[in-house]
């Protein structure tokens, strides 16, 4: 095979080189992240020992509007028992997130990731996506969407993790 054919073959092979992101499933360790937040840096490793309810949200996501009051309730109810709700905003423009927060306040830790690096690492498949992470840093459950009938199951999972 001459050199030109070899190069052509190599270039054609690169057509099939796209690699899918590894899915973050229950039982897997939660990928590390460090992001700027509304009140200083938010680092997942620093929250080890607490049960973390990690929620990926955006201002344009309808169910997120519904989930915020619920997440405020959860933080208030279980915060003393060791729950920390962390909301990671994925808006490209910070102004959109601020407008949303002015209408729907959040009483939990907020982080901002406009580049979308964290959801890529977590292989987020829908908006919103929430992960329940145990005190050992391992994912307990991954949940996409937020519907009325799912609230009880989510709360039960949080309560069970805090035992």
């Amino acid at each position: 095979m001459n050199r030109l054919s070899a190069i052509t073959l190599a270039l054609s092979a690169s057509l099939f080189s796209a690699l899918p992101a590894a899915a973050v499933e229950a039982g897997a360790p939660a990928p590390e992240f460090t992001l700027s937040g509304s009140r200083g840096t938010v680092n997942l490793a620093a929250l080890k020992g607490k049960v973390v309810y990690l929620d990926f949200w955006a201002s344009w996501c309808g169910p997120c509007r519904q989930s915020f009051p619920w997440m405020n309730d959860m933080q208030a109810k279980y915060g003393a028992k060791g729950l920390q709700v962390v909301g990671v905003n994925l808006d490209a423009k910070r102004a959109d997130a601020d407008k949303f927060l002015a209408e729907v306040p959040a009483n939990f830790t907020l982080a901002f990731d406009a580049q979308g690096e964290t959801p890529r690492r977590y292989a987020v498949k829908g908006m919103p996506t929430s992960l329940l992470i145990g005190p050992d840093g391992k994912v307990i459950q991954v949940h996409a969407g937020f519907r009325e009938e799912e609230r009880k199951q989510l709360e039960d999972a949080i309560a069970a993790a805090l035992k």
Partner: protein
Amino acid sequence: MHHRTFAALLLLSACLAGCSVFQPPQPWEKGLLAKPEMTLGGDALEQRFDQHILNSKEAAAGGSGVGGGGCGCN
């Protein structure tokens, strides 16, 4: 094969290899798609205009969803 043809094929496969970079939008990148203007029936007024123009040009009415009219035009 003529060496110029070979060079052209080489260039083509290089360009096609670049196409593997493109992916559909990620779930968190769909902010613009979520805007009400982006839905099929986003602007009711624009829909009525389009319906009227179509009905006028086709010299026939109907087949365009519920409601509309009320003025005897369909």
